[in-house]
């Protein structure tokens, strides 16, 4: 067994599905070239869609509308509870309703640049084009977007752009968009086109050995514990991001990487796992009991001023610290952008002042976001109108009144740009396995702009996946999955047996530590060694500690209860087991990428001013990793990125 960091470099990989030619024509061209399936034949085909977030609900509803038999899965008790429900700020679209110079071209440009030139141009361009249709679709469904007095849609500005293109529904945009997709899905369920399997977790993929195609999944019924196979002609994973590998994040508690990791173990390449996004304004950890972190919208930085005491260890009440003993460090270091520097920069600056011992609040991991000046200038009423609901939420959680005492904030893991590698059709390296939404790596490069994840989820689900699945079934003329087919039955038997065996193994360890305690330890390790700032030394240390933790997990894990019941400890244990494998790959990816870009900051690669320094000569590629066994060095496949429309430049905010 060789050291994990001694990965092999395999054959390069390329996207062969995007048509060449002018960027503007590629999506139309692809739709024109795509094969179709006769409507009468569609009902003979079954498509599995795992996940009911924006990507999954919209894909399942649309495939159902087109006449496919759809099997839809989620781990919650209702599809409406998928994590997309929690998104706050808004969704981008290049409608240019404000006549402020927006266009598909500009949204494309902003996204490629915001992604720090690590995304595939043709995918991003398509995303920008589809953004227009998304808003039309959602309005037709009754999504109650904010409107102006004249009855037209309202928009606001978000970070990283100079136009106002973010559509929103108060601070609950994700909820309203998801309800639109969920309602379309429920309509198909009631019509009998979609069969819904709530409280059902996918634990493995079924791949037929003779042709290597995805042909179904194995699930565990979370109520009865029953392990079952579901066969299909195509499988679509829309299972969200893997941020919870860090334990304390803004994600929902159940968010997990199991579906994509199981697919990865079957040969689907996993791309750019080290691209993780940290959000600068979250409510800090209040104690060891902390189970998750809550986001405070980025918009607060428009009026709040960020500061810490100048002296280390200053424990006075903030109101007693005089002006000249405060350090408004963002305004000091970045005079041009001040408190509005991008997410990654604001996050790292907060970490640095806390590392110096100047952090505030419990454990010294927090900085102030102070509204006193804004309240004095604009009056309390105006601030209430702008941020009332956020202030309320803050007070509910911390018990402190942000009108009279500055908020305490700290960065937290929020989103993962990496995910399963897909081509332009959103097909993974396993034929018949499609991946949509946060689960794929496709559109955001090394950094996602605010309000672009919702856009991507719906673009993938409503508009791309249906075309790709049609094309796949039309092009391959694959016969509907036959449960009696011996090869398929054998593959399903093996997958099912594997799942049962793993469940038994988790229960059989019968040690003395809970899955949650391992998850916390893993999260802490990842945050400290592979979080906001990464070095060769910290990453090497992480690569030493993760396998040891994994070994301890399989030696000391305790899962009370049995397999054939609702057993939340068992669910958690399975997810943590997969995180313990994925974490190692994430760290290796971060170690191998000896440059800083977007959300990935390598301390060794920075400008004299301390900003991220890209290395386009060496790293202008997508790192797509192939699984080679647990703890075995994986194989790196590079997809070189070509920038035809956009010339890579350096970001500057000073």
């Amino acid at each position, binding site marked *: 067994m060789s050291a994990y960091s001694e990965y092999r470099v395999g054959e390069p990989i390329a996207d062969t599905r995007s048509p060449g030619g002018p960027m503007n024509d590629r999506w139309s061209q692809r739709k024109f070239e795509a094969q179709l399936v006769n409507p009468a034949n569609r009902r003979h085909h079954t498509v599995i869609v795992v996940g009911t977030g924006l990507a999954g609900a919209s894909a399942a509803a649309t495939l159902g509308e087109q006449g496919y038999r759809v099997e839809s899965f989620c781990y919650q*008790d209702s599809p409406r509870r998928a*994590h997309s429900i929690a998104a706050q700020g808004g969704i981008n679209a290049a409608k240019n309703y404000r006549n402020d110079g927006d266009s598909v071209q500009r949204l494309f440009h902003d996204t490629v640049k915001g992604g720090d030139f690590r995304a595939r141009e043709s995918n991003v361009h398509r995303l920008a084009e589809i953004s227009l249709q998304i*808003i039309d679709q959602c309005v037709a*469904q009754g999504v109650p977007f904010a409107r102006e007095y004249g009855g037209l849609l309202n928009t606001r500005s978000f970070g990283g752009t100079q136009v106002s293109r973010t559509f929103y529904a108060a601070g609950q945009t994700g909820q*309203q968009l998801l*309800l639109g997709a969920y*309602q379309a899905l429920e309509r198909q369920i009631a019509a009998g086109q979609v069969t819904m399997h709530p409280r059902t977790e996918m634990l493995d993929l079924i791949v037929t050995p003779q042709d290597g195609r995805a042909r179904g999944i194995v699930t565990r019924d979370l109520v009865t514990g029953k392990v079952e196979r579901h066969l299909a002609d195509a499988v679509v994973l829309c299972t969200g991001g893997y941020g919870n590998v860090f334990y304390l994040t803004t994600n929902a*508690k159940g968010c997990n990487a199991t579906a994509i990791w199981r697919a990865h173990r079957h040969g689907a390449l996993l791309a750019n796992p080290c691209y993780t996004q940290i959000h600068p304004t979250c409510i800090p950890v209040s104690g060891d009991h902390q*189970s998750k972190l809550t986001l405070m919208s980025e918009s607060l930085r428009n009026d709040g001023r960020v500061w810490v005491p100048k002296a280390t260890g200053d424990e006075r009440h903030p109101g007693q610290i005089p002006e000249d003993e405060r350090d408004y460090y963002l305004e000091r270091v970045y005079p041009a952008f001040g408190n509005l520097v991008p997410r990654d920069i604001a996050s790292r600056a907060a970490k640095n002042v806390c590392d110096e011992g100047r952090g505030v609040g419990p454990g010294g991991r927090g900085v102030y976001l102070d509204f006193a000046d804004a309240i004095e200038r604009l009056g309390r009423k105006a601030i209430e109108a702008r941020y009332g609901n956020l202030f309320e939420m803050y007070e509910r959680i911390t*018990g402190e009144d942000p009108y009279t005492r500055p908020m305490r904030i700290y960065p937290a893991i929020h989103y993962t740009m990496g995910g399963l590698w897909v081509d332009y059709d959103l097909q993974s390296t396993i034929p018949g396995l499609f991946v949509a939404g946060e689960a794929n790596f496709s559109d955001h490069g090394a950094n996602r702009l605010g309000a672009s994840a919702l856009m991507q989820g719906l673009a993938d689900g409503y508009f791309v996946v249906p075309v790709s699945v049609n094309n796949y079934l039309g092009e391959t003329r694959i016969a509907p999955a036959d449960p009696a087919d011996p090869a398929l039955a054998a593959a399903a038997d093996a997958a099912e047996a594997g799942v049962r065996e793993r469940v038994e193994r988790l229960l059989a360890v019968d040690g003395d530590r809970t899955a949650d305690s391992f998850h916390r330890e893993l999260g802490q390790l990842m945050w400290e060694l592979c979080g906001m700032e990464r070095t060769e030394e910290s990453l090497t240390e992480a690569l030493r500690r993760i396998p040891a933790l994994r070994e301890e997990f399989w030696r000391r894990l305790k899962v009370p209860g049995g397999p054939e019941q609702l057993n939340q400890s068992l669910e958690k244990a399975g997810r943590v087991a997969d995180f313990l494998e994925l974490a190692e790959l994430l760290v290796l990816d971060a170690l191998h990428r000896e440059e800083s870009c977007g959300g990935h900051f390598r301390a060794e690669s920075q400008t004299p001013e301390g900003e991220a320094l890209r290395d386009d000569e060496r790293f202008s590629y997508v790192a797509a990793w192939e699984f080679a066994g647990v703890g075995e060095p994986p194989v790196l496949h590079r997809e070189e990125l070509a920038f035809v429309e956009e010339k890579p430049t350096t970001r500057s905010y000073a």
Partner: protein
Amino acid sequence: MSDLMELTLRVWRQPGPDADGEMRTYTVADVSPDMSFLEVLDVLNEELAARGEEPVAFDHDCREGICGACSLVINGEPHGPQKRTTACQLHMRHFADGDVIDVEPWRAAAFPVVRDLVVDRGALDRIVGAGGYITAPTGSAPEAHATPVAKDAADEAFTAAACIGCGACVAACPNASAMLFTAAKIKHLNVLPQGRPEAGTRVLDMVAAMDAEDFGGCTNVGACATACPKGIPVDVITEMNRDWLKAAARSRKSGR
């Protein structure tokens, strides 16, 4: 800070849908006022697991008051004592050292207990499936600005659409009625111009679907709106009844 509390929790334990349940008593020490209610259950569960006992099952996911998963009756009140706050956002500074706290699942015939504090709320999804949508298949939508929507209609739709589908309204109602939930969805869609074409069938079909489940009737108690963590106003029920009467009269005339 030494304001840590010791609490006694009396928790409903029920191994399965058909098994008998009972309240069981546990003490949890060192509860910080900064903890959320669900974090107290986390601590209890870690202790139970360490002792080899089965943890208390409860639904939760976002822990931000938006997914609607958490569903605890705390001291007899769905989501507990704090107004307009889900159980996951309820923090322990609202309790005192030595408190005895009862924790139970939603109680309603339409929400059978699955295990401990977990219930089956599938009935709510089925009500939505009966008509809680606007028929707009993907790709069929006109340009978004083709139909302006008056701001007050959009705002009213949003207020009703803020429902998180938690079911606290049903749990709070002495009749276990789902009127507030159903009416909120109907209001959201019927007040919008896009929702008008189906307004009549929507209200008839959704009310019929609601009646087909095990929910009770509405006797205007109003406990639903008091318990609702999202402030859904009770007026939506009156509006639904009005819509229903109109639609029923029309459908009688047209012989639908």
